[in-house]
């Protein structure tokens, strides 16, 4: 297991290098640059040239990239923002990442609490009105983009009913609407997976045998059905969490959640290259780690996979 993890971590290095290089180049391909934005509409070309020199942006892109990677390797340093009074990106990540992580955890919990029971009951009451209604809701949740759902929830619960705050991230009540907006889609995905997985299990021989041996249907479903049906859902949950962690850009922007998504969007509009690079590398690392964690967890959960690995 340890060698498996090590191997995967080593494989992550070239991926991260490739990603960082891509972002580095793509960010610079976007029209206009940070200096033009910092300088504003009244600066002369001479001032812009001078600022470019001061920020080291007049060097060839490859030289800039090598400097960047070297600083990362040598000092473990993502560099400094061009704006924000030259704040260090490591410091920015330190304050932003916990916020994004909290939002992702909450959204995942919300998705589990809402999605799993819906999936279970839809499977148990397969083809009844409940099943159909549940699947209708699920399709709706999957199809409504957060950029629509967020403002709708705000209008209803914050502006009209005034039960919840509009935006910001200062108290637990502030986290409710972003959590729902971010988690809704995942809840729907989990519900669908739980339903189809449980339907599959319900048709298995071992379940029929358990009932034939005299176990009540309820007990059989609970002890043997759901337990086995949850395994594939667990994998999906991992992927969902990875997506939640890296996919809260829109939700964070709508609700002004000061996490890495919001910061990334801001830095993109300002062409704050070091921040764009730092945040992307961070998100990519997280994604790789979450995927690794899923693989490891999968082995822990399903002994069949673990034994296969052992044999290999």
């Amino acid at each position, binding site marked *: 297991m340890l060698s498996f993890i090590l191997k995967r971590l080593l494989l992550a290095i070239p991926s991260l290098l490739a990603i960082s290089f891509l972002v580095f180049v793509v960010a610079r391909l976007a029209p206009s640059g940070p200096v033009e934005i910092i300088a504003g509409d009244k600066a002369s070309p001479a001032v812009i040239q001078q600022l470019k020199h001061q920020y080291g942006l007049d060097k060839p892109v490859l030289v800039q990239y090598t400097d960047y990677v070297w600083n990362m390797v040598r000092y473990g340093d993502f560099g400094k923002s061009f704006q924000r*009074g030259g704040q260090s990106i490591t410091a920015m990540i330190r304050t932003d990442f916990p916020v994004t992580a909290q939002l992702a955890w909450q959204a995942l919990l919300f998705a589990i609490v809402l999605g799993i029971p819906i999936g279970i009951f839809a499977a148990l009451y397969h083809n009844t009105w409940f099943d159909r209604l549940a699947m209708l809701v699920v399709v709706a949740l999957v199809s409504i983009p957060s950029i629509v759902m967020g*403002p709708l929830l705000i209008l209803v619960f914050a502006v009209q009913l005034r039960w919840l705050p509009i935006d910001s991230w200062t108290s637990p009540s502030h986290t409710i609407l972003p959590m729902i907006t971010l988690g809704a889609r995942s809840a729907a995905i989990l519900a669908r997976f739980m339903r189809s997985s449980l339907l599959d299990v319900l048709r298995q021989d071992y379940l029929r045998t358990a009932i034939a041996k005299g176990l009540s249907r309820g007990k059989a479903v609970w002890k043997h059905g759901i337990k086995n049906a949850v395994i594939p859902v667990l994998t999906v949950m991992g992927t969902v969490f990875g997506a939640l962690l890296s996919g809260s850009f829109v939700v964070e922007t709508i609700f002004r959640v000061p996490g890495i998504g919001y910061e990334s969007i801001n830095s993109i509009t300002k062409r704050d290259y070091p921040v764009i690079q730092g945040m992307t590398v961070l998100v990519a690392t997280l994604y790789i780690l979450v995927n690794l964690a899923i693989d490891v967890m999968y082995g822990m959960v399903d002994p069949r996979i673990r034994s296969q690995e052992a044999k290999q």
Partner: protein
Amino acid sequence: MQGLSIFSRRTVLLLSALSLLALNGCNTTNRNEGGASTNTASAGNVLRYPLTTEPTSLDPAKVEDGTTIDLIQQVFEGLVIWSDKNEITPNLAENWDLSPDGKTYSFHLKKGVKFHNGREMTATDFKYSLERACDPKTKSQTVQSYLKDIVGATDMNLGKAKGISGIKVVDKYTLQITLDGFKPYWLGNMTYPCAYVICKEEVERNGGEINESNLASTTGTGPFKFTEVRRNDLIQLGAFKEYHGGTPKLDGISRPIVKDAGQRLNKYQVGELDFVEISPADLDRVQGDATLKDELKSFPRAATWYIGLNQEAKGSPFTKREVRQAIAMAINKEEVIKVAMKGQADLANNVIPPGIKGRNEHIQPLSFDPAKAKQLLAQAGYPDGKGFPELTFSYRNDYPQVSLAAQVVAQQLKTNLGINVQQRPMEWAQFLTERKAKTLALTHLRWAADYLDPQNFLSTLLHTSKKVNGQEDHPENGMGYNNLEFDRLCDAGDTEKDPIKRAEFYAKAEQIAIDDAPWVPIYFQRDLELIKPRVKNLKDSLFGHRPHVATEVTP
């Protein structure tokens, strides 16, 4: 047993998730400690209004945009300030003398002015502040525009000198600044943030930087000081009790950073904000609401929105005066204002907005006259628009009213002149880059005054630009406009000591600029704001609200 182990592991996972959540939950509550909440319940004696963008910097030397200027002018101050009558008035300088040659200002500083850390501000601090702003290490993008007239400032900014030779500390309370020529409009530059005074020891303790990672570095002399800066979230200011102009009436100012206009209006409606700027696009929502309608106010600003006709762009048809005049007379400004601004702007026949002394109050405009416009276009060789090159109309894409105005103008040119216009909404940064390269032929843009003087409109924007030592001497003339008589009148106005004669020069120059139509002024900007009745005594100048020294809120 095998099945059970699955469940216990799952439970473990869930429990660890929950505990992490709880831990993070603590973080959330920590973030809120020590700062006034943005909720209505605890509004108290705090003025709450949003920042529409993240402040670009807290360093006065680097601040360029109006939003951030409004923020830092509460904290830092300069020698002089614009009054609510739009005149230069003393601030940290009590008064000043001008030498007979008009080149040397001696500022007599107010005595007993304290920095937020309690130390007295003196002339040395001003010398340090201006020199730090010009130091290339500071990376200021504004000093070249606002401090370049001071002898030696450019040399220092280019790294050729260690200090500014034109700035002398005569004694503790006297600061002498020498200019490279007589410039009657120059004091306006001293209202700009790069001329604000900063506190040497606090800045040096922060490695020469002024930023949010060490709020002590933002020590100024202003009526408020930064108490909390939460990136992407909220900025809080607290009153400075020992302010030289008297203790502010407010306990503090709370500035949540809310970029979305719809969200700002939502927050205002539920009472989380005391005032909020709105865009014309929101006027329908506001005017349909009885309460909001009464709270709507509008403020004139020193900014002109115009249609730029660039003669330097490749293949530009605007080199012909008749073509420019035809365009000017084919635009129905009233309709543009009605559609794009919902009537909330002042029609512009001048280059210079109202309220600026020396503006030509008897201008003869090129009025809307489609028949005359058609005739002029025919004279230029394009009868009914035939043979006229297709134009690309470039403008920034982040304000709906700008796009709307451009669409109306394009439609008018098509209907009245038979000219085809391609719309090209652009990202702001991209627009700036191309505008500076002077490749955009037809643009819709505004000029916002740096200081209230005809020079800042006429000479700065439209004087012929020549290359001097490889640099344009009038880089803001983005239209390639050149008229020797206009240049002569501007030069005369720029150096005339008698204010009445000066005004006469500029009045003549402005009439020439209107007749030649290098650009077509459309409207003078008004800021639309919703203001809660609890806000009292808000002071305003053409640049925006003045520092909130006298502003009050009823709790």
